[in-house]
């Protein structure tokens, strides 16, 4: 059960990611969480997705986060939670216990009759091509979004012809 250590590692890294007061530390812990997650994914047989998770989740997102932190300035967030800590803890634990009691233990599935292919590329480019196409839409929409959000609107009055 050596995988247990990965799980514990994920928990610690995830916890640190949200507990570190300094923004840049948060981002780094998140990268570690992501890396450990991708290891677990690899162990589950999702080779390609693990690579993508490693590059996008641990790589791109961290870079973007660091970039954003650079713009807003790396600060130490010492604010006290608005929702009382124990109330939040209570709510989350209640939810987890309730969910967990209905989810664990899980059975090994007996769906071996499912005919669906287990090849990633075929699934992505042929069967679920619509999802892939929608990713492109999402990408373009978000590009528009970032452009729109970053645009300088101060010249609005200047351009008005009326």
């Amino acid at each position, binding site marked *: 059960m050596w995988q247990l250590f990965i799980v514990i590692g994920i928990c610690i890294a995830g916890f640190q990611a949200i507990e570190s007061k300094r923004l840049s530390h*948060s981002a780094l812990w*998140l990268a570690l969480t992501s890396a450990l997650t991708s290891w677990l994914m690899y162990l589950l*047989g*999702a080779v390609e997705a693990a690579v993508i998770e490693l590059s996008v989740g641990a790589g791109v997102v961290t870079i973007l986060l660091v970039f954003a932190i650079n713009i807003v300035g790396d*600060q130490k967030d010492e604010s006290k939670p608005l929702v009382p800590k124990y109330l939040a803890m209570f709510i*989350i634990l209640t939810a987890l216990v309730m969910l967990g009691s209905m989810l664990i233990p899980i059975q090994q599935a007996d769906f071996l009759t499912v005919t669906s292919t287990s090849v990633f590329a075929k699934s992505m480019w042929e069967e679920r091509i619509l999802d892939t196409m929608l990713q492109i839409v999402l990408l373009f929409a978000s590009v528009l979004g970032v452009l729109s959000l970053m645009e300088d609107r101060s010249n609005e009055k200047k351009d008005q012809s009326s």
Partner: protein
Amino acid sequence: MTLTFPDLVLIAVMALFGIGLYALLTIRNLIRIIVALQVLVKGVILLIILAGYLTNQIGMAQSMALTVIVADTIVAVLGMALAVQIMRKKKSLDTSDIAELKR
């Protein structure tokens, strides 16, 4: 009671989920909220792969995981763009400072 590997992964998923939601409740800094959301996303992606593993459809699961990774990176990017603008406007990233619209 022995824990199987899928059970372990599920525990990791639940832990990531719990941590993420807890953070969403208690964290006030927008950038850290994005981090919290990402933690949540890690949990979900792991669950997708686990489901693929259990149902013997790992290819489809990977394809789905890829979509989720892309979609949530995009959400994170938009969140960062908004946070940057908020910082410019309000000189703060604290959720209590951006709570003018209320009641």
